[in-house]
């Protein structure tokens, strides 16, 4: 099965390991990876800030970049959500609407792809630790994917999952929100870090680099020992 | 006498204009809604099951429930009045008291006032001082533990509102699953050319408030206590 990887800016620039783990994991599961080099960003930072015409430029570019793909897979619930929003952005646009729909229809967040398309829940991973999981907002509420990551994590050998208090709460990242409303964002991430602390886990797992960067940054600032990891890195750990 | 309608044309023309069209002058057919989950709630419950659901719900709305039959109703009510300290009692002027052979006025040890339109505001003065108010339920909603009261000349709004304790007599056959059925009955009446009562009250237990630190306080402006008496008819 040929899978076109959409790596996302954060993973490309800051979290290369997440990308590597994603590639290796998908290959292990029998996928042929295609990485269209012309890819850039899904446009979300501009779109969510109201710069819709600027965002459209990158969206059109991304539609073209992935036009040839059978499946587009990305290690980010938030960026996958943005792709699935494209049809709304280009609604009524004769040139772009159908192409936007085509892209949205073949886009999957990584765990979603493994569980729903590859129909696999046990990827043969092992990781010995006590972990808690952060349900990122866009993935759970907008992409409506709540089960897939947990199904996969439950099968990881040695991984003990404990619940995160107030898991439904946003971590306060919100893209440009974190720099536009820093005082409020700070309170939100501090509250999230407190709940992570209360979960008493060794690691915090998430499926979105944005949230992990935010929560991880706070945990690092507070000098807490909790390790923050992307789910791809857990699932790629050999048993 | 019909009331006046003021400033309508200008207002509604403007509204229609904002919607980018002319005013709608024909009848709008309300569509059949695609989703109608309300009819599925307690759809298959028997009358006895509805009674159980009603009783269960009353536990969470701080409402005491007594069950009795037609023969016992009169004495049940009298006991209730005495248990609640007696004092002034106000009831609706409702033929159902006769139908259920409840004759409170003849009891010498009770202080009963029957709502009487001829007395005008005196009714309100007495009711405001009353310890207990007693009415029948016109429709009863099992799901929410609600008695539905239609106002009328003998059926003052204040009887279920002003006294400290409110007692509702619920004939078992008035119990329906939920508000859906009550709304439908009202719509049917209207479709048959009847007028809807000037005041329809859906009452679920005593008055309450959570306005102070989210603490539930039972008994604010309306009754502090509510009791339902279900009568097997």
């Amino acid at each position, binding site marked *: 099965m040929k899978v076109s990887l959409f790596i996302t800016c954060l993973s490309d620039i800051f979290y290369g390991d997440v990308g590597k783990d994603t590639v290796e994991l998908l290959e292990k599961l029998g996928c042929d990876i295609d*990485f269209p080099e012309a890819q850039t960003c899904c446009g979300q930072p501009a779109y969510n800030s109201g710069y819709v015409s600027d965002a459209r430029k990158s969206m059109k570019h991304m539609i073209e970049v992935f036009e040839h793909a059978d499946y587009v897979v990305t290690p980010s619930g938030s960026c996958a959500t943005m792709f699935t929003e494209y049809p709304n952005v280009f609604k009524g646009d004769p040139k772009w609407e159908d192409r936007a729909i085509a892209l949205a229809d073949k886009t999957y967040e990584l765990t979603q792809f493994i569980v729903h398309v590859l129909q696999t829940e046990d990827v043969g991973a092992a990781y010995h630790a006590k972990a808690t999981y952060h349900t990122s907002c866009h993935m759970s509420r907008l992409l409506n994917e709540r089960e897939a990551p947990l199904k996969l994590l439950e099968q990881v050998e040695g991984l003990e999952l404990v619940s995160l208090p107030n898991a439904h709460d946003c971590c306060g990242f919100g893209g440009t929100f974190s720099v536009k409303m820093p005082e409020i964002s700070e309170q939100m991430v501090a509250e999230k870090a407190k709940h992570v602390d209360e979960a008493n886990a060794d690691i915090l797992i998430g499926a979105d680099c944005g949230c992990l960067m935010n929560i991880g940054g706070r945990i690092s600032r507070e000098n807490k020992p909790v390790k923050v990891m992307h789910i791809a890195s857990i699932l790629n750990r050999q048993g | 006498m019909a009331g006046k309608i003021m400033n309508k044309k200008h207002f509604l023309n403007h509204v229609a204009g904002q919607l980018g069209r002319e005013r709608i002058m024909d009848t709008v057919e*309300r569509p059949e809604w695609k989703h109608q989950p309300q009819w599925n709630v307690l759809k298959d419950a028997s009358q006895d099951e509805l009674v159980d659901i009603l009783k269960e719900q009353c536990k969470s709305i701080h409402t005491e429930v007594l069950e009795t039959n037609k023969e016992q109703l009169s004495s049940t009510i009298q006991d209730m009045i005495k248990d609640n300290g007696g004092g002034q009692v106000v009831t609706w002027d409702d033929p159902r008291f006769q139908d259920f052979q409840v004759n409170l006025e003849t009891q010498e040890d009770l202080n009963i006032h029957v709502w009487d339109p001829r007395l005008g505001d005196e009714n309100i003065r007495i009711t405001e001082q009353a310890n207990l108010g007693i009415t029948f339920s016109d429709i009863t909603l099992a799901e929410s533990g609600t008695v539905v009261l239609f106002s009328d*000349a003998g059926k003052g709004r204040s009887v279920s509102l002003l006294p400290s304790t409110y007692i509702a007599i619920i004939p078992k056959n008035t119990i329906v699953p939920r508000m859906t059925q009550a709304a439908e009955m009202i*719509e049917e009446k209207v479709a048959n050319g009847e007028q809807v009562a000037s005041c329809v009250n859906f009452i679920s237990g005593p008055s309450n408030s959570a306005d102070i630190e989210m603490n539930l306080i039972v008994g604010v*402006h*309306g009754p502090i206590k509510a009791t339902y008496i279900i009568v097997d008819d």
Partner: protein
Amino acid sequence: MSMKIGAEKFDERVQEGLSDTFMRGAVSSAQTRFRNGRLNAAEELGGWEEWRNLGEEIRTHTLENIDYYLDLLSEKVAERGGHVYFAQTAEEANNYITNVVKKKEAKKIAKSKSMVSEEIGLNDALKDIGAEVVETDLGEWILQNDDVDPPSHIVTPALHKNREQIREVFHDKLGYSKTDKPEELALFAREKLREEFLDADIGITGCNFAVADTGTVTLVTNEGNARMVTSLPDTQITVMGMERVAPTWNDMEVLVSLLTRAAVGQKLTSYITSLTGVKEEDDVDGPEEFHLVIVDNGRSKILGTEFQSALHCIRCAACINVCPVYRHIGGHAYGSIYPGPIGAVLTPLLGGYEDHKELPYASSLCGACTEACPVKIPLHELLIRHREKIVEEKGEAPVFENISMKAFGMGTASPTMYNIGTKLAPKVMKPMVKDEVISKGVGPLKSWTTARDFPAPGKQRFRDWYKKRQREES
């Protein structure tokens, strides 16, 4: 009071909210209770998504045909002896109402909770003509006695106050001498307000839903005060936002079921009171005279725009009760009687961007509001539409942001530019990196690093690794 509350700037209001420890604790625990209540109620009911779909269907149809339903409503109210006044502006509404009060020579007015009356500043208008207005909802009464402190929540207006503060208000203003136990405070209110109800010449209410096909106003309450003000005074005035209309009792019933569950997790509130016209000829209690005032006050501007669904709102506050931003800053920080996500959407529409331009940004777009809304208003998307308007139509975005977003547009539409930009990132950031992280950022990173560390860019971008790997493989 009007819709806008307070004169401070948004940042100052936020700071004030953030530093109010009691308020934040109160809001946080209230949110937990509201949220659990709503979720339990929805689960108990079953098929909640179907209910939401139905709610959305009813509201969409009603708003699309709102002129028809308002026309029908007014005819039916008039048939039952009520007067109907259509007010395009707050001023028109207030003028009409004050004229009724003057004509009746009314001295005392008992009022049950009504957000739209706050919005149009009705109490001030009544005070100006010398009428005494008593708010009778417990929360509103507390606020009124505390020198008209504005509400901070649309369902529980005094949420920001604790029992000691309430006791103090009662003590200082009303001579209360008992403890701060909620039961004692409420009993005091019961006794005091009972006199007011009996004394009042006019009752004023809001309106949760108005049934068009019978001309019926429905009030959803728990305390019983709305029943008092519609049973005892001879004259009743009901003020409704024009979008509160529902076609039939069947529809009203569904909306009430959604409202009580979404707002407080109750199957129904203690009192749902449905009032049609004036009292019947032989009725003793109930109003002899009834006026329905239907208020536009900026709502019609929203019709026919991408924001129309904001008018579907049934004022349950479910979005407020799940909003993490509201939790931390509280209601007053929004500078509007409509706080939280729906407030951030509605306030700029009704009051303009000028005074409220920060509100659409007071959200991390986490979507909790959209998920909670019982009539499926896409709240977080409407916030993005506001941002779009501010940026692209009003051109009111900050210069730095504007430049960076233009650069973003260029950089992400062109692989070459993206390549250069992302390659440069490590070099640009290098001076700030210490122990693998950036703890003291400059520029846009400065505010980020006040609260948390920022990761140092990887030594190698993913794409460089991937390319190298491919080369090695071949």
